């Protein structure tokens, strides 16, 4: 991969305990299942540059995902570890791939960086949500490999 890390000294948190929320189990709604399931799917994605999960690096948290079940819309907001993170688009790709089969096909997924968390927020958000660019990026073998490393090393 790259020789010089973009962020050599990230702040690392403890891995959070897996949550099984007894109150939510009673609700038993599609919304809740989707939300909890999707959070559990993405929290362990490995950061492109460090051997820690996106949750451990505070890139993602339980508050990162909002679901509007009625409209069929999902919004994921993540916080890159530094303002000039060029890995933001890779993280976005990882999120989309990991969540691909998680929601019904008509659901729309929007991914954004948390407001104020990136120097080129508007430009990054635009790229994170251009469907054609995302598809083309995933057809690029080098990028695909990087994404696969982030997704599947977390399963080891």
């Amino acid at each position, binding site marked *: 991969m790259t020789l010089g890390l973009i962020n050599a000294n990230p702040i690392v948190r403890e891995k959070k305990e897996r949550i099984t929320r007894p109150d939510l189990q009673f609700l038993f709604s599609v919304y809740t299942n989707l939300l909890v399931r999707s959070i559990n799917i993405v929290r362990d994605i490995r950061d492109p540059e460090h051997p820690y999960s996106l949750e451990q690096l505070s890139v993602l948290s339980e508050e990162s995902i909002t679901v509007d079940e009625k409209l069929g819309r999902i919004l994921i907001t993540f916080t890159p570890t530094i303002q000039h993170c060029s890995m933001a688009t890779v993280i976005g790709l990882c999120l989309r791939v990991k969540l691909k089969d998680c929601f019904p096909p*008509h659901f729309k997924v929007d991914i954004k960086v948390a407001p104020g968390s990136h120097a080129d927020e508007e430009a990054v958000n635009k790229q994170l949500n251009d*469907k054609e660019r995302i598809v083309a990026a995933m057809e690029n073998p080098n990028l695909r490999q990087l994404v696969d490393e982030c997704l599947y090393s977390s399963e080891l």
Partner: protein
Amino acid sequence: MPLLEEEALKLSEVQRLEGHTDRVWGLAWNPATGADGVPAILASCSGDKTVRIWQQRSPSSISFDCKAVLEDRHDRTVRSCAWSPSGKQLATASFDATTAIWEENGSDFECVSTLEGHENEVKSVSWNASGSLLATCSRDKCVWIWEVLPGNEFDCVSVLTGHTQDVKMVQWHPTVDVLFSCSYDNTIKVWAEDGDSDDWRCVQTLSESNSGHTSTVWALSFNVTGDNMVTCSDDLTIKVWGVDIIRLQSGDINASWCHLCTMSGYHDRTIFSVHWSREGIIATGAADDAIRLFGESEDHSADGPSYKLLLKKEKAHAMDINSVQWSPTGNMLLASASDDGTIKIWKLESMQ
């Protein structure tokens, strides 16, 4: 042409074409078919790296069968396809950075030429009205113009730079050799050949400062007379532009386009495709899985034309719609292509 009333129209699903194994990105009706006893032919291109040719079973039936699958040529998504005006050749643009030219040979299609040159994904291809020129555009920010020569030779005559980002679509004007491109840089550019120097150059840029779009412009389409153009965008609006057609057709390359109308508030997700029918109906295909039809409103102010929503077909597909194309032969058929891997044929009818 009957007077269209907003409540009196319906869009009925005629057929659903299945076969592609990935999202369908683009559609093109063969302009030499669909009338005078010739069954209509439709081409579709997909993320499954193939192009499918669909043919109307008979001139009187509205059923289409898959006549051919063009495969083993592109090794990445085929993003766009376009028939030559004669209907004899099909150009296909791919993320593999090439454009292939196909011709029917007996019962099958063969690739007779491959256009290379773009540095990365080719997004769109378009033939001019006479079929003498081809244009392609790419994420490499360039627009290429190719001359069509005998023996399936295609010579690049110009590489046009100017867009600052990924170019999403190119489209030739329906009557004059003026080229239009739209881009991720939020602008539409107009390119024409300078009479003196025979060089192609950008003669106009439609940007936010001249009432242009504020996000990626995905597609553009002309009305039948070529004096109006409609564009659609990630900014959730469609815009209508006009030009002095007499000036344009007389060869004045500086005849400029001006903003006439913006339709906002009708779409809440990216509009990927817009197409103007010969009868004057504008169809849009969007990322909310719906097809919308717009027509000119009778009550327009002195400022210019205004448009109204004629019909909204929600859940036209199960996923995003990437392309909508009216059949060129006035039979009020509309084809739509979607991320759900299917193509649908619709018929627009009056309810009465």
